C-alpha cells in the first residue's frame, strides 16, 4: 500500500482519471437506490419479460451460430490444405469490419420485396414481379443471422490461435489410434480449445446485448431498445438507468466468464509445446466442399454487403453529398481528437504506473469501460453532466457540448489503447529506464527520448485501432452528439431509418473501409502466433 504522505501529484492524476471513468458507471448503479417509478413497474409488468426473453433468444441463437461458423472454419484452415486457404486465413476475419447495424440495414433492403435478392431470383426463374423468395428478415431469426455473420470472427480468431497451439503429437496419436479427422475434431480439438471458444462466445454475447442499431432497425424489443425508448419516449432517465443497471449486471457476468476462460487458455498453453500439425491435403469433392464452407461466411458477412453498397453507390447521381462531407469531417474531427486524447492518456498512465511502481490494477479498472454498452455509457454520462449543469446552474452548457461524446469515446476505447500501449511498454526492459536514470536522465527526458521513440509503432497501431472503432460507433454518438452534429454512423442510421439506403451506401462504405484497419493488425497477430 502507498502511504498517504508518499502520494505524489501523479497518484492524484490517476485517482482523478479513475474517478472520471467510473463516475458514469456509479451514476448508473446508484439509480437502483433512488426508488422505482410507475414507469418501471409498467415495464416490469408488461415489457421486461419480453426484453429478457428476446435477449436470451438472441444470445443463444447468435452463440450457436458463431460457434458453428467460427470453430468449423478455424478447424478447416488449420488442419487442411485446400484451394484458397491462404485467402481464407485472413478473409474470414473481414466481416469484423462490418458493424452489425450496417448489415441489418443492408439485409433489410437486399431481401426486401423489391430488393436485389428477389429480383435476381425472379430473373433466374422468370417469374412475375409478385413472387417473393425470401421471408421477412426483420425478425429475431434475421437478427441472429446478422449478428452471427458479423461477429463469428471473434470465435474464429480465438479458436484458430488455440487450434494452432495444439501439439502435433496429440493429433497424430489420435490418427495412430485409427480415428478420423471428424472424430478427432469433436473428441480432441474441441475439448482442448473449449476455454478459447467460451471466451470468444462471451465476447459475442456482450456485443449482442450491447447492440442498439441492428435490433432497433429490426424493431425487436430488447434491453437496449427498451432503455432508449424509456428515456426518449417516456422521458424517464432514472428508469432507463435502472434498466441499464440490470443489463450491465448481465454483461459483467459475461465479462467474468470471458476473463476466467482466458486465464484457462494461458494455463492450457503453458503445458504444451508449439509444434504445428502438418495439414491434410484435400482434393476433388472435399476440396470444393471446404472451399464453399469457408466462402459462405466471408460472402454473407463481407463480400455481399460491400458489393451491394458499391452497387447502390453507383446508382446515385451525386456520390458524396454536402451532408455526407460534413458528416465525414465531423467524424474525422471527433475520432481524431478522441483517439489522440485516449493515446495520450494511456501513455501517461502507463508511464506513471511503470515509473512509480503503481499496480497494474489501475489499468484493469480504467479498461472496464469497454464492457459497458455505448448506449448505457451515454445515459450515465448524460445523467452525470446534467447533475453538474444543475449544480453549477449552467442550463445545459456541459450536457449540450461535445465533451460528453469525447468522454464516452475515451472510456470505450481506453481498453484497446491500453492493450497495445501496455504490451509495447512491457517489451521495453526496465533496465533501460534504470540505465537512463544512472545517466542523470530526468523522468520527462526518459519519457521523451527513450520511451516515445520505442513506443512509436505501438502508438500508431493503437491510434488506428481506436479510429476504426470510433468511426463505426453508433449508440453513444446518437445520444451524446451536440445539436446538428452528424457523424457518418449517425447519418447512415438516420438515412436507413427513413429507408434511404442508396444515399447511405457511400458513408457505409467509408465506415467499412476504416473497419478494415484492425483486420490488418489482427491478421498480423495471428500470423506471428503461427510463426
Amino acid at each position, binding site marked *: 500500500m502507498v502511504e498517504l504522505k508518499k502520494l505524489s501529484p501523479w497518484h492524484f492524476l490517476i485517482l482523478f482519471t479513475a474517478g472520471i471513468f467510473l463516475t458514469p458507471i456509479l451514476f448508473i448503479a446508484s439509480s437502483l437506490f433512488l426508488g422505482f417509478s410507475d414507469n418501471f413497474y409498467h415495464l416490469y409488468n408488461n415489457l421486461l419479460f419480453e426484453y429478457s426473453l428476446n435477449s436470451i433468444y438472441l444470445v443463444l441463437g447468435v452463440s450457436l451460430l458463431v460457434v458453428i461458423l467460427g470453430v468449423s472454419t478455424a478447424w478447416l484452415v488449420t488442419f487442411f490444405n485446400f484451394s484458397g486457404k491462404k485467402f481464407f486465413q485472413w478473409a474470414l476475419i473481414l466481416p469484423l469490419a462490418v458493424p452489425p447495424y450496417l448489415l441489418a440495414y443492408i439485409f433489410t433492403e437486399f431481401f426486401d420485396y423489391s430488393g436485389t435478392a428477389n429480383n435476381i431470383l425472379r430473373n433466374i426463374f422468370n417469374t412475375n414481379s409478385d413472387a417473393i423468395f425470401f421471408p421477412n428478415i426483420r425478425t429475431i431469426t434475421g437478427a441472429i443471422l446478422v449478428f452471427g455473420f458479423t461477429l463469428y470472427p471473434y470465435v474464429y480468431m480465438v479458436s484458430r490461435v488455440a487450434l494452432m497451439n495444439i501439439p502435433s503429437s496429440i493429433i497424430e496419436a489420435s490418427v495412430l489410434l485409427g480415428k478420423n479427422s471428424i472424430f478427432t475434431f469433436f473428441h480432441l480439438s474441441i475439448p482442448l480449445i473449449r476455454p478459447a471458444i467460451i471466451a470468444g462466445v462471451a465476447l459475442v454475447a456482450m456485443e449482442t446485448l450491447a447492440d442498439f442499431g441492428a435490433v432497433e432497425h429490426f424493431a425487436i424489443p430488447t434491453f437496449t431498445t427498451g432503455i432508449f425508448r424509456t428515456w426518449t419516449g417516456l422521458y424517464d432517465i432514472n428508469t432507463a438507468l435502472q434498466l441499464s443497471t440490470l443489463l450491465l449486471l448481465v454483461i459483467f457476468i459475461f465479462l467474468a466468464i470471458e476473463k476466467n476462460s482466458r486465464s484457462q487458455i494461458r494455463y492450457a498453453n503453458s503445458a504444451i509445446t508449439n509444434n504445428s500439425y502438418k495439414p491434410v491435403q484435400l482434393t476433388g469433392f472435399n476440396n470444393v466442399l471446404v472451399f464453399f464452407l469457408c466462402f459462405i461466411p466471408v460472402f454473407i458477412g463481407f463480400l455481399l454487403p460491400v458489393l451491394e453498397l458499391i452497387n447502390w453507390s453507383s446508382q446515385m447521381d451525386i456520390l458524396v453529398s454536402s451532408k455526407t462531407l460534413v458528416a465525414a469531417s465531423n467524424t474525422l474531427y471527433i475520432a481524431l481528437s478522441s483517439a489522440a486524447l485516449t493515446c495520450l492518456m494511456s501513455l501517461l498512465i502507463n508511464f506513471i504506473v511503470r515509473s512509480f511502481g503503481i499496480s497494474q490494477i489501475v489499468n484493469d479498472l480504467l479498461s472496464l469501460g469497454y464492457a459497458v454498452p455505448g448506449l448505457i455509457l451515454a445515459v450515465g454520462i448524460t445523467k452525470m453532466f446534467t447533475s453538474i449543469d444543475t449544480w453549477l446552474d449552467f442550463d445545459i452548457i456541459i450536457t449540450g457540448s461535445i465533451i460528453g461524446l469525447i468522454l464516452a469515446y475515451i472510456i470505450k476505447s481506453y481498453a484497446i489503447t491500453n492493450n497495445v500501449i501496455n504490451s509495447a511498454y512491457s517489451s521495453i*526492459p526496465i*533496465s*533501460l529506464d*534504470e*540505465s*537512463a*536514470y*544512472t*545517466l*542523470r*536522465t*530526468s*523522468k520527462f527526458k526518459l519519457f521523451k*527520448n*527513450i520511451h516515445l*521513440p*520505442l513506443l512509436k509503432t505501438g502508438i500508431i497501431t493503437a491510434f488506428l485501432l481506436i479510429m476504426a472503432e470510433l468511426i463505426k460507433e453508433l449508440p453513444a454518438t446518437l445520444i451524446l452528439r451536440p445539436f446538428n452534429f452528424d457523424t457518418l454512423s449517425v447519418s447512415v442510421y438516420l438515412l436507413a431509418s427513413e429507408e434511404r439506403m442508396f444515399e447511405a451506401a457511400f458513408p457505409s462504405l467509408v465506415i467499412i473501409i476504416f473497419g478494415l484497419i484492425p483486420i490488418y493488425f489482427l491478421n498480423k497477430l495471428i500470423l506471428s502466433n503461427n510463426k
Partner: protein
Amino acid sequence: MREFLSIKNVDLSFNKKDLKISILKGLNLKVKEGDLIAITGASGSGKTSLLRTICGLESPSNGEIILDNLILFNNEISLPTEKRNIGLVVQEKVLFPHLNAKENIEFGISNKKNKKQLSNEMMERLKIIKLAEKYPHELSGGESQRVALARSIVMKPKLLMFDEPFTGLDKELKIEIYPEIKSILEDSNITSLMVSHDLNEVKALADKCFYLKSGKLAEI
C-alpha cells in the same frame, strides 16, 4: 585521501509473498576518493542489490549512504537516482535500441558544445571508434559492453559502479582493455566499485577487495 563514500548500517530486504528476505544486514563500507574497490561473493549474496541500493534503484529500510559529503540516503532523505551522479555498468544489454553507439554515448552528456569531442575521445580510448554508427542489434555482446562502459565513463560520475561488466568479453580483449580502463579511471579520478567473481579481473583492476556474506562485507 579523504573518505569519499560512506555506507553505514544499511539494511535491505525484499518481501516475497508473506516472507521477508533480508539481503543486506547492517552493512558498512568506506571508500577513499579515486579508489577502485572490488566486491565478490557467492551468487545471490546481494552484490548486485548493494550496487542498486547505492545508486538508488533499491530503497533500504535503514541506514545512511553519503557520497562526497552529500547525503544520498538516510531515514529522512532519499535522493532519486538521476540526482546521485553515480554511473552503473551492468552485464545485461542496456543500450538504447533506437540510438547508434555514438548517440548512446552522447545521450547523457549535457554539455552540447563538447558532446562530439568527448564521445570521440572516449570511443578512441576504448577502441570502439569503428562502432560509432552501429546500432545495438548490430553489436556483439563484448562491443555492447564497451559502448555501455564508454557511456557511463564519459559522464564523469562521482562514483562508477560495474556489475560484472566484462563477462561477455574474450580473454585477449580483457587483457587489452583492463589497463586502459584503469588508466581512464585514474586520469579522471573516478572512484569505482566493481562486482566480480573473476579473481584475475579483481587483481588487475582493484585496489581493495571485499567479500559479501550474510549481508555484510569483510575485507580480503
